[in-house]
Structures are given as structure tokens and as C-alpha cells.
């Protein structure tokens, strides 16, 4: 039994470049009749979120924000403060897990969990490489847009359960913001789906591959694609509550918004959810407009740069790098732009982004139908 299990386990890394080869081999891996492979398949994005939030998310953001403000950032723990995150984790683990006496215990406890699950569920349809995807659904993009709804319920549970007026205000603001910005975001992604003619994330990515690298990306395939790209990027900032749309947690007005009352590990889970959704929206924008796991390098004559940098392992590298680039832009904007007011936020959504999203939708449709 163990020998067959072992041979099955080593298959994914030898099976080569077939589409979804790694994930399908992993899904078929059973140990003692238990579907251990499916659990591992689900655990891989989870481990990825944890690792990336600890390194790039927490430490990277502190360093980047410090450099942008001409400071040094964390410098005390380890060389250049590299161990600062580990110190933070130790602190969070040791903290007393406080549930306020007047809080609604049940909702207060499940709130961060529902929030994290909401941001984690979308990872099921993100193709991390040509050989790895959690679930190759034919409604992948639709699922990724729709599943965010769970986050909304988690935020409301946390905000209401805290029994604190700042928390409730933060939660209500956050939900109003996410629900409104879902509309321009969904229409902008629909433009990408129209260009692809499918909702399958893996198929969308494959349609953008080619020997000329970045030229095949949807962003450069149509003269209007930059508009939905920009609209989705702005709307995704609002959906993950990042600056300049961070009014749900506006420190100067609401203390910390819906997570004011949280401390210790529950606070850590909320932050993990935030970093999880940051990478999620960055990966979605990379997949729909910037070719996902495709290499951006073109083949120049005999110098086959595209062929050299393609393959399952390179694919994972490219999509993670593209995601990290957009997270860097999110951080950059956070320390550059001032926060919007609530009425400005709604004005931007309903009177600017939504009409322009409709315009780009119609123009993309005309382009796709009449220009082959």
C-alpha cells in the first residue's frame, strides 16, 4: 500500500506539462482509502496565503511604506528587521483572547472565520500554473466574482457581534462599498470574458499564450481593453477595502472599523483574510487581462525567450510575480492617495465607474463582433 501511494505521490512532479497534470494526479492520491490528495490540494493555497502574508504582506508592506515615507521601518529584530514578523506572530499567539462581555459571543467568534473562508474560497478556481488548479470549473470567473459575497456576511457578523458603534459603522460602510463596487468590477471582467468567449480560468489563460509573449495578453489585444482593466483595478481596491477606499477602517474616524474589538489570533485571521483577498483580486486581474501564468517575454528571432521561460514551474513563478506586482501597486497607492469621503466613494462608483464600464462593455462587444 505504502509503495503504491509513494509512487502515486511522486507522479505529479514527473508528469510534465500536461494541462492540470499536477492537480489531477494529486486529486487521485488516496492514503488508506482516505482522499488525502484532495485535502493537500486545498491546503496548498492556504499555505501559500500564510507564507506570502507573513513575508511580503506584513514585512514587505511595512518596509515599502517606510521607504515611501523616507523612514527605515522595522530595524531592531534581526538584520534589517527580517525577524520582526516572527516576533509579531509570537506576540499575537500569546495575547489573551478577549471576547467583550457585551458582545454577541457566537457572531463575534464566527465573524473572522466566515471572512477568511470567503476570501479563501476563490482560490479554488485560480490557476497557479498550467499544471495546477484547484477546480477547473467552466464557470470559474463567475464563481470567483460571486463567492466574495461570503466575505460581506463575515464582515457584518464581525461588526454586529462586536456590539460597538464604530464596528457596526465600519461593517455597514464596508458592505455598502463591496456591494456597490461589485457591479463595475463584474462588468469589467465580463469584457475580458467576452474577449475569451469562456468563463473557465484555465481556458482564458491558454487563449493568451503565444510565442510573442505579452502581445497576446488581452490588455494588448484590443484598443479598449485598458478601460475595463483600469475599472476593475479601481473597483478591486474598493472590494478589498484598500486605500484610497479604506473608509470602513478609517483610523481617524472609526478607530479600526469592523475589527476594533478584535485582538490576538482573531485579529490575525482578519488580516490573513485581507491579504488573501488582496492576492485574489491581483491574480484575477492578471489572469483576465495579463495572461495569468504565461510568460510576458517574447521570442526574438533565434533567441527563444518565451520558450525558455514557459512551463508549469515558470507558470507558477509568473502568476505569483504578476500578483505581487499588483499588490505592490496597491501598497504604493495606499501611501500616496488620501482617503475618499463616503459620498465621493458612491459618486465614483455609480456616476463614473459604472457608466464607463457599460461603455467599455459595448465597445468590447462591437470590437469582438466586427473586428476579427
Amino acid at each position, binding site marked *: 500500500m505504502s509503495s503504491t501511494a509513494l509512487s502515486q505521490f511522486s507522479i505529479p512532479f514527473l508528469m510534465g506539462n500536461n494541462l492540470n497534470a499536477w492537480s489531477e494526479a494529486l486529486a487521485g492520491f488516496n492514503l488508506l482509502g482516505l482522499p488525502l490528495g*484532495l485535502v493537500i490540494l486545498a491546503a496548498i493555497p492556504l499555505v501559500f496565503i500564510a507564507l506570502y502574508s507573513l513575508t511580503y504582506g506584513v514585512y514587505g508592506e511595512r518596509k515599502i511604506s517606510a521607504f515611501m515615507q523616507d523612514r527605515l521601518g522595522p530595524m531592531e529584530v534581526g538584520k534589517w528587521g527580517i525577524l520582526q514578523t516572527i516576533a509579531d506572530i509570537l506576540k499575537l499567539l500569546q495575547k489573551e483572547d478577549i471576547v467583550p462581555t457585551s458582545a454577541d459571543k457566537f457572531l463575534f467568534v464566527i465573524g473572522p472565520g466566515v471572512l477568511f473562508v470567503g476570501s479563501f474560497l476563490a482560490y479554488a478556481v485560480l490557476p497557479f500554473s498550467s499544471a495546477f488548479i484547484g477546480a477547473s470549473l467552466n464557470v470559474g470567473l*463567475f464563481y470567483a466574482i460571486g463567492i466574495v459575497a461570503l466575505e460581506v456576511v463575515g464582515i457584518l457578523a464581525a461588526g454586529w457581534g462586536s456590539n460597538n458603534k464604530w464596528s457596526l459603522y465600519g461593517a455597514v460602510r464596508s458592505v455598502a462599498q463591496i456591494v456597490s463596487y461589485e457591479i463595475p468590477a463584474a462588468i469589467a471582467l465580463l469584457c475580458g470574458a467576452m474577449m475569451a468567449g469562456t468563463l473557465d480560468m484555465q481556458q482564458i489563460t491558454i487563449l493568451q499564450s503565444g510565442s510573442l509573449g505579452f502581445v497576446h495578453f488581452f490588455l494588448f489585444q484590443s484598443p479598449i481593453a485598458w478601460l475595463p482593466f483600469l475599472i476593475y483595478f479601481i473597483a478591486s481596491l474598493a472590494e478589498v477595502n484598500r486605500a484610497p477606499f479604506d473608509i470602513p477602517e478609517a483610523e481617524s474616524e472609526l478607530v479600526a472599523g469592523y475589527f476594533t474589538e478584535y485582538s490576538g489570533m482573531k485579529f490575525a485571521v482578519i488580516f490573513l483574510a485581507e491579504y488573501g483577498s488582496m492576492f485574489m483580486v491581483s491574480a484575477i486581474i492578471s489572469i483576465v487581462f495579463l495572461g495569468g501564468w504565461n510568460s510576458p517575454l517574447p521570442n526574438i528571432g533565434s533567441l527563444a525567450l518565451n520558450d525558455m521561460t514557459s512551463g508549469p514551474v515558470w507558470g507558477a513563478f509568473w502568476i505569483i510575480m504578476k500578483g505581487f506586482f499588483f499588490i505592490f501597486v496597491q501598497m504604493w497607492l495606499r501611501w500616496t492617495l488620501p482617503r475618499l469621503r463616503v459620498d465621493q466613494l458612491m459618486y465614483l462608483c455609480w456616476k463614473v465607474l459604472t457608466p464607463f464600464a457599460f461603455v467599455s462593455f459595448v465597445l468590447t462587444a462591437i470590437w469582438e463582433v466586427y473586428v476579427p
Partner: protein
Amino acid sequence: MSNPTYTVIFYLFAAITVCSAAFVVFTRNVIYSAFSLLFTFFGVAALYVFLSADFIAVTQVVVYVGGILVLLLFGVMFTNGIMQTGQKSEVFHIVPGTFLLAGIIGALLYTFYTSHGWMPSESTLQGSIVERIGFETMSRYVLPFEMVSILLLAALIGAAFLARFDKSGK
């Protein structure tokens, strides 16, 4: 359904659906029943997935969790005195209620066991479901589709009209 894993997962989701739906009905706290609806909706979406109706499952999540549940939560939270559990109706009709329940369940079970008209498709569905739904919506069912669109547009305009700040009234 031969794989035992799928059977276990199916019963897990069925249990989640039924238990959370029962909790919605039996809890005294309106907020809890609204949050419990989340699990009911997700369980139903999972059951759609077991019927190979991925598109309907995702639509269920988008419409019910993203739209209706959030609206319901807002409505419940902004209602005064919602945490007072003393609110209950003084009208009880246990005997007619029981008869009605038994009648409905009996009729449903009778239909379920006697009719065989499940209308299985002549050919199994090939390729993407989404594409077929798009073609059918835009060809055979275009009239119902347009009628629903006009209805929703009218509802949207009506809502915007009702919520409008009345300048002449002030």
C-alpha cells in the same frame, strides 16, 4: 455517486442545509436566523453542484447570499428592538397548521412517488453548460428573458423613485 467520498460530502452538505434551515425557523433571535440562512443557501448551492448544475449553484450564491441575504441582514439590523426576544405572535392555530403541513407534505410525497415524468434529456449535455444557457436564453427563451429584464428595470426605477429625496415636500 459510487465514490464513498462524494457520498460522505453529499450527506454532510445535506445535514448542514437541513440543520441550518431548522435553526432559522426555531431560534428566537432574528439576527441568528438571518445569519443561519447563509449556511442554508450554501448547502443548497452545494446540492446543485451534486446535480451537475454548476451555473445554477454559483447563481444561487450570487443572488441569495450576495443580494437577498445582505438586504435581509441590513433590514434586520436597522430595525429597532430586534434583540428583544419577547416578540411573538399571540395568534396560534396549532390544529389547522398541523393539518396544512401534513397535507402539503403528503401531496408532495404523493407526487414524488407516483409521477415518473422527470423528463430525462434525449442526449447527454456535451461541452460547457454556460454556452448552452447563453444560446437558449438568446434564442428559444428570448421573450421571457426580455420580460424579466423589463420587470427588473421597472422595479429598479420604482425603488430609485421611492428612495429619492423629496425636494418639494421639504
